[in-house]
């Protein structure tokens, strides 16, 4: 009993984790409302609901059936489909189909974790890196260039490819960092616009001689040789796309935990982010701190880009990280969801990846557009960003100071 009481108290004290979980619940509620309002079958059932006995019950059932089917297909499409899984366990066959949902979620989460940590590091320094997508593109281009144009044994070639990705991102991070440090240019504007520069630079490369696939007029690169690819974790024969990029993502997470929680430079990042005046008075070199933060962030964003190519497509075309595939933009919201902390970001990435992957499955199964997943993602972030609202809805007690602390420092500084 005391244990239940303890859990209840923890729930009511509104920790950041509680807020995030409740935001997920509210996001799903918002999604359900949209499903109800846009599915003709449900609306028709409710239209007839008050004409005869039993009809309201029928309408409720139709509603639950439809919303349930949609959410069920998100879960079965992104984590596991229990009947299929049971079939594999009992017959020993169909493992590829059973594990594909989880494999896809992890595959998508790999670059998202890395890119979100990249963004989170600048947020912790009080800076906005809206250009992670452009930096990831540069990383992907640089990685593909080194992979396809240099010939080396694999032990050297793969690390060099990943390093090239980091280097490409570092260039992308250095531009806004140096511009802000030495001219005061606002990093939001510079990074935001830089995304376009990166996209068109990529297009230029894809249409130019060394990188473009020979005898092609389309914007498409050569394919990375096998020795530079991040191989599937369970072998090519498994049919599962989850790859050794997962090792890269874990390494980046460990690095970020060290950087933010244990390193001196990370301490200086956080002091600068929380109070730039005190940082300066404490002898922290503001210019160096912001440039370093941007270099690390850019480098990680570039690594996210190259990890995605090397782990999945092995070539890039003009759609690389464009539109809804722009993980560098999703990373901004994931970072906010994870409160800019590495472990929070890992959970946030898994959730967003699952919604992304499950959303496609939902569209295939129920006809509800994939975009609903994006709506749910956005709603979750809005609720996470307004903990006071979540607290009111769920009647939580006082917010802990850390829960209502705005996730990032101001724009003006």
């Amino acid at each position, binding site marked *: 009993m005391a244990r239940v009481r303890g859990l209840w108290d923890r729930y009511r004290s509104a920790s950041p984790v509680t807020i995030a979980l409740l935001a997920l619940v509210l996001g799903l509620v918002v999604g359900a409302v949209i499903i109800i309002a846009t599915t003709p079958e449900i609306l028709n059932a409710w239209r007839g609901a008050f004409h005869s006995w039993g009809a309201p019950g029928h309408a409720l059932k139709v509603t639950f059936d439809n919303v349930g089917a949609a959410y069920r297909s998100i879960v079965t499409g992104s984590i596991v489909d229990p009947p299929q899984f049971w079939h594999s366990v009992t017959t020993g066959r169909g493992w590829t189909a059973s594990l594909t949902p989880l494999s896809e979620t992890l595959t998508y989460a790999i670059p998202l974790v890395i890119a979100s940590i990249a963004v989170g590091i600048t947020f912790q320094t009080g800076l906005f890196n809206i250009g992670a997508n452009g930096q990831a593109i540069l990383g992907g281009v640089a990685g593909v260039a080194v992979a396809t144009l240099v010939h080396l044994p694999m032990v050297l070639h793969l690390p060099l490819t990943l390093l090239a990705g980091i280097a490409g991102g570092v260039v992308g991070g250095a531009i806004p960092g140096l511009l802000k440090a030495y001219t005061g240019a606002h990093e939001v504007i510079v990074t935001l616009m830089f995304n376009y520069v990166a996209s068109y630079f990529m297009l230029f490369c894809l249409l130019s001689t060394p990188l473009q696939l020979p005898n092609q007029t389309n914007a498409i690169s050569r394919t990375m040789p096998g020795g530079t690819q991040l191989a599937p974790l369970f072998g090519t024969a498994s049919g599962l796309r989850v790859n050794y990029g997962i090792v890269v993502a874990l390494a980046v997470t460990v690095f970020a935990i*060290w950087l933010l929680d*244990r*390193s*001196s*430079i990370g*301490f*200086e990042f*956080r*002091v600068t982010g*929380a*109070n730039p*005046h*005190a940082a*300066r*008075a*404490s*002898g*922290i*070199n503001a210019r160096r701190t912001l440039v370093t933060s941007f270099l690390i962030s850019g480098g990680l964003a570039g690594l996210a880009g190259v990890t995605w190519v090397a782990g999945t497509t092995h070539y890039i075309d003009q759609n690389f990280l464009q539109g809804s595939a722009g993980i560098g933009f999703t990373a901004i919201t994931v970072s906010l969801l994870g409160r800019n902390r590495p472990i929070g970001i890992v959970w946030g990435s898994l959730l967003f990846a699952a919604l992304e992957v499950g959303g496609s499955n939902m569209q295939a199964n129920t006809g509800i557009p994939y975009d609903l997943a994006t709506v749910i993602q956005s709603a979750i972030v809005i609720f996470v960003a307004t903990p006071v609202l979540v607290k009111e809805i769920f009647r939580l007690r006082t917010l802990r*100071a*850390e829960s209502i*602390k705005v996730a990032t420092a101001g724009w003006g500084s």
Partner: protein
Amino acid sequence: MRLELRGITKKFGSLTANDRIDLVVEPGQIHCLLGENGAGKSTLMNVLFGLLQADEGEILIDGEPVRLANSGDAVRRGIGMVHQHFMLVPVFSVAENVVLGFEPTRSLDRLDYARAREDIRSVSREFGLEVDPDVTVESLPIGLQQRVEIIKALGHDAQLLILDEPTAVLTPQEADALMAIMRSLTATGKSILFISHKLKEVRHVSDVITVIRAGRVIGTVPPTASENELAAMMVGREVSLVVDKTAAAPREPVLEVRDLVVRDDRGLAVVDGVSLAVRAGEIVALAGVQGNGQTELVEAITGLRHVESGSVLLGGRDVTNRSPREILDAGLGHIPEDRQRDGAVLSMSVADNLVLNTPRRAPFARHGTRNLRAVRDNAETQVESFDVRTSSVDAPLSSLSGGNQQKVIVARELSRPLEALVASQPTRGLDVGSIEYVHREIVRVRDEGHAVLIVSSELDEVMALGDRVAVMFQGRITGVVDPSTSREDVGLLMTGSTPAESR
């Protein structure tokens, strides 16, 4: 307007900022609220202006109880407030600032500047508040900006004006002008509630003085009360501040500035050729009305502001225009004037704040990795020896009281290897117990043979703590005197005139 406060009580957590305060302001009266920093004056004014809600008690205007849920209510009831920090838009003109929020308009929602200007002129004429409606506020000196705030309040037809420490930022001449304005306002029947902790001006201008201490009304007295009586009521003991210290044994100069010229953000030479030497084993107290260049002088010494010409020497080394990091490492301790802005990170833990400017120094870090155990051990030791009241060293600094936050900063600065200590307003806003504590620590630093420079606008503190008192006025040192010099003579130096005896 007759204003009456009955039994106002306001609590912040365990702290009772106002404890059953009763106060009556009669029409046409200048009523002064006198008390030390942290006595609860500003809280009371915020309650009165609707910015805070009292936990208990009521506010009566002309005998009628009123509820002031926000400052808009207060303005409608005829209460105007001039904040210590002005609430003006710097890039707007005087006229635009005055009408802000209550803009007169012509058809199609066009602003009626002609009427705004005319309103300002009529208010100016009526009360002798001359100011050009068309200049931008940022181009005006502080005294005139304050005047704009007063016009703004009067423009909303205020019958009771609250002036929150209005002279803290003014030159003596500007302060005199303000007193004259206050008189002309009360002559027309308006009432003024005047907040201050400066005894002289309070006695000079008030009709009635109410003294509060630690959130309670200690007494209401006429302005004929002597300064000593008022001081005793304010601090709760006969002699306001006694610092228990032996005679200084000064040795060689450690912290020196020579012909220093420093410009402020507007490009004015606010430190204009200052030379001053602080010797090992002595406390030099820098006195002066706020805003005479003390802040910029300290910023220049600590590397936070560019030195135009002249030099700063620390332990014989030239540290002019070096980075704050180099100056800290050269052994300068700094207790900043605005501790929450420059001295601490409120959202971080007590332990982290205790190593805020030494995060890379052994044993707190090795090869770029922090040693969290060493940081924690250090925090446990400091919290113990400096008697910081906190639930844990991991608690965020924001959970501590102002006095304990200051103790954390003092502990951090005094536990580093020091050559010299610069402390700006080290006891501002602290309770009496913390003040004594900070003073004892500063004297201890001196007795260990370090050079100490104290900057304070509290004359009592300057006289009690300093072994020598340097007085600053308009960017220059107008005199360096012995602390036994009379307060009147130091006061004269603070206004730029030379007392007869200081030859």
